C-alpha cells in the first residue's frame, strides 16, 4: 500500500537508481556479471518504477536472480532464491509487504513441475512466468478488486479512507466513472502524510474530498457510510498490516457500526500470525517506555509507578522531581503540564514533534480481524477468516 518512495534509511540508495526506470521485461542495465548481481539493488530499481508495488518488485528482483543464476540443479536454484529472499528482507527497512512476494515466488518455483529435461529451459520458463506475473498481475488484480468494490459503494456514499493506496484510489475512480456521486474523507496519515497525495489525485478527477487530521477520525465517523483502506499485507488471522493509524480507524469504525472494508491484492497475503501490535514480522519494537530511560532507572521509581494508578503516579513523579530538584526527562506522552504541577512549566516545548520523536514511532500497525467487515481481494470477497483458508490452500503441502 505504501508508495514506492523510499523509507528514510534507504533514501540515498534510491536516488541513485532514479535514472534506471527501465520497463520491466528488460533487465536494468547494471552491466554487472552474474557473480555480483545485487538483488536488493534490483528490487530498488524495480520499486522506483511507479506502478510496481513492493511484493511485485520483489518477484521481479527474484526473477532476475533466477535469470542470472548459474544454478545447474533445482536444489541449487531454490537455495540461491532463498538466500536472495533473505537478503531482500534484510536489506530493506520495512520488509513486510515485500516478504509476501518473496514467499509466493519461492513457493511457485519449488512447486512448479519441471516439464523440460533441460534445466536451463525450465529456468527460462520460470523467468517468463515471473515476468508475466509482475507485468500483468498488479493491474489485473486491481481491476478485479475495483469491480468487486463497486458493489459496496452506493450512490451518494460518504467514504473514509486512510493514507494513499493505489487499489483504493482505483476503486474510488471506478465508482466515480460508474457515475456514483461519492465524497471522500481522507486522513492525512502522519508521519508520511500520503493522504495529501490521495486528496490531490481525487481533486484532479473532481471527486469531492476533504483532508482530515488523523485525530479527527472519531469526530468525522458519524458522517461516514463506509471505510475503505488498502493494506501493506494481510496476515493469516485475516488482520491487516497497514500505515499506522489504520487500527485506530478500525476501532472507531467498529464503535460507530460502520462497515470497514480492506481492499487487498492477493499477492499481499502474508503467512504470519501476529498475536498483537508488537508481534509484527521483521519489525523492531517501537516507542520504548520511559521506565527504560537511564535517568529514571537511577531514581529507582519503576516499581511504585507500576503499582500506582496513572494519575497518582504522575503526581508523585512530578512531586519527587520537584523535591529532588533533578530535571526529569518526561516521555512525550506525559509532558502535558498538569494544573498545579509547577515543575513541568519550567521549559515550554517547541510546537510539533522533533524528528527523533517521530522516528521512534511505528510506520505500520496491526488491525485485528474482528474489526474488519470484509477483505475484498482479486481472489474474491472474503471474510477475514477466508484469508487463512486461502493461504493454507496456497502454501499447504
Amino acid at each position: 500500500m505504501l508508495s514506492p518512495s523510499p523509507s528514510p534509511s534507504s533514501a540515498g540508495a534510491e536516488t541513485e537508481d532514479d535514472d534506471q526506470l527501465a520497463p520491466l521485461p528488460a533487465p536494468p542495465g547494471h552491466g554487472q556479471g552474474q557473480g555480483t548481481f545485487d538483488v536488493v539493488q534490483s528490487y530498488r530499481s524495480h520499486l522506483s518504477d511507479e506502478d510496481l508495488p513492493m511484493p511485485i518488485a520483489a518477484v521481479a528482483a527474484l526473477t532476475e536472480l533466477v535469470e542470472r543464476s548459474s544454478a545447474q540443479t533445482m536444489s541449487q536454484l531454490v537455495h540461491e532464491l532463498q538466500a536472495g529472499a533473505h537478503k531482500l528482507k534484510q536489506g530493506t527497512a520495512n520488509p513486510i509487504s515485500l516478504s509476501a512476494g518473496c514467499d509466493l515466488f519461492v513457493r511457485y518455483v519449488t512447486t512448479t513441475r519441471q516439464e523440460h529435461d533441460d534445466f536451463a529451459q525450465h529456468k527460462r520458463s520460470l523467468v517468463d512466468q515471473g515476468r508475466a506475473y509482475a507485468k500483468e498481475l498488479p493491474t489485473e488484480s486491481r481491476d478485479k478488486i475495483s469491480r468487486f468494490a463497486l458493489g459496496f459503494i452506493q450512490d451518494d456514499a460518504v467514504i473514509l479512507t486512510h493514507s494513499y493506496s493505489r487499489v483504493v484510489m482505483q476503486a474510488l475512480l471506478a465508482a466515480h466513472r460508474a457515475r456514483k456521486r461519492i465524497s471522500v474523507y481522507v486522513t492525512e496519515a502522519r508521519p508520511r502524510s500520503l493522504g495529501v497525495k490521495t486528496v490531490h489525485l481525487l481533486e484532479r478527477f473532481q471527486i469531492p474530498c476533504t483532508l482530515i487530521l488523523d485525530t479527527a477520525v472519531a469526530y468525522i465517523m458519524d458522517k461516514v457510510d463506509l471505510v475503505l483502506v488498502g493494506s501493506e499485507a494481510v496476515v493469516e488471522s485475516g488482520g491487516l498490516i497497514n500505515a499506522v493509524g489504520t487500527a485506530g480507524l478500525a476501532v472507531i469504525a467498529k464503535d460507530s457500526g460502520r462497515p470497514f472494508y480492506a481492499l487487498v491484492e492477493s499477492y499481499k497475503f502474508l503467512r504470519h500470525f501476529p498475536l498483537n501490535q508488537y508481534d509484527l514480522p521483521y519489525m523492531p519494537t517501537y516507542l520504548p517506555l520511559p521506565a527504560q530511560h537511564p535517568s529514571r532507572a537511577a531514581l529507582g521509581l519503576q516499581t511504585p509507578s507500576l503499582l500506582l494508578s496513572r494519575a497518582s503516579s504522575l503526581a508523585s513523579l512530578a512531586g519527587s522531581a520537584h523535591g529532588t530538584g533533578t530535571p526529569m526527562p518526561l516521555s512525550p506522552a506525559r509532558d502535558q503540564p498538569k494544573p498545579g504541577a509547577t515543575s513541568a512549566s519550567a521549559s515550554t516545548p517547541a510546537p510539533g514533534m522533533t524528528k527523533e520523536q517521530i522516528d521512534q514511532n511505528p510506520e505500520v500497525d496491526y488491525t485485528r480481524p474482528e474489526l474488519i467487515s470484509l477483505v475484498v481481494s482479486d481472489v474474491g470477497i472474503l471474510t477475514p477468516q477466508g484469508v487463512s483458508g486461502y493461504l493454507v490452500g496456497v502454501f499447504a503441502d
Partner: protein
Amino acid sequence: MPPETITIRDKPTIKQIESLVSRLRRRQVIGAQETAHETALLLRQIVSVARFSSIEQLIQLIKSIARRLIDANPKEFAVGNIVRRVLRLIREECVAALGPSDEPSTSSPFSVPETPAYPNPPDLAAPSRPQLRATNSLATFMVMGNQRKKPLAITVKPLLIQAIQEVIDELETVYENVAKTARDHIYDGEIILTLSYSRTIEQFLKSAARDRHFTVIVAETAPSYSGRLMATALSSANIPTVLIPDSSIYPLMPRITKVILGAHAILANGGLFTQCGCALAAAAARAHSTPVVVCAGQFKLTPAWNLYHEYAALDFAGPEKVISFEEGGGGERGGEPLGVINPIYDYVKPELVDVLITNDGDHPPPYVYRLIKETYDDEDMQL
C-alpha cells in the same frame, strides 16, 4: 469465442418459462422453498427439450433464462442459487461423461497452479455431495458403453436430468434433513423464541418435541401475523406454545434460553435476510447473551453480500396490512397523506448469529463463504 446461442423452440416450455416469470413478478410464487422448487422443475424441463451441441451452449441458455427469472423478482435469491447449483452439476456431469475439456485453464499466470485455492479436505467435502459421487460413477459406467459416438445431447441429457432430479428430491426432503439434528440442539425445559412462520422451523421443533419437553414462545410478527399460524401449528402438535405480541420480545428475553430464526437467504458473509422483526429479536438476544440459532436449507446460501450495509428493507409489502384504506380515512380525510412503509425483510448481521443449521450440517456464520465456494462454481457467481 462465444458459442452460437440457442433458444427454446418447444411451445409448452416457452409457456412454462413465461408463466414462471410472470408469477414471480406478480408475487404469486413467493418464499425461498417455493421458488427454488419451481426453478428446479423449470430447469429440468429446459434441459430435456433444449437442443444443444455443446455444453457451453446449454449453460448460456440456462443463464439467459435465469437472468429473466432473477429480474422478475430479484429478492428471491433461491432462484439464482438453484440455477448455480444446477450449472455446477451440469459441468461436473459433462466432465465425468466426456473427460476433462481440452481447453487450457484460464487461470492467471503464476497463481501457484499446483495447489487449489480452496482445498476440500476429504472429511469436509464428503458429506456435502454424497449423491453426486454416485452419479459420477454412473456417468463413467455409461461412457464405458461406447456412447461417445452419439451426439452430445443424447449422451448427457439423461445424466443431466437425473442430476436435476436429485436437486429436486433434495428440496423436497430439506425439512426432514434440517430437523434431523433437532434433538441435539434443544434440551429439556428450554424456552424457545421464534418469529413468523417457517416450515423449516415448524419441522425442526416438531422433530425435537419427540425427545424433548420444551416451551415455544412465538411472536405474532405483525403486520403479516404469520406467527399466529406458527403458534397454532405447534400447539396442535402438542408442544406447549405461547403467543406474544412483537412488542414484548425484549421484556421476555431474560426468560428465553434460545432464539430460533428462519432465513430467506444466507449471505456470503454469514449474515441473513429474514422476515422483518428477526433483527430486533436477534439484537434483543445479544443484549441478554441468548444464543441465536438459524435453521435453513442449503439452497438458501447466496453468493451475495449485503451491499447496502444495514439496510435490507428494499422489498416492501402493501400498506393495507398495517392500516386499511378505510381506517386511514380513505380519500375523504383531509390533511397530509399518510405514508405507510411495510418492509418484508430484515438484515441480521453475522455477529448476532451463533450457529446455522442446514441440511448440510451445522456451521458457524464465518464458514458460509467456504460452503458457497464448495457449492457453486466461481464463474456462476454473477449470472
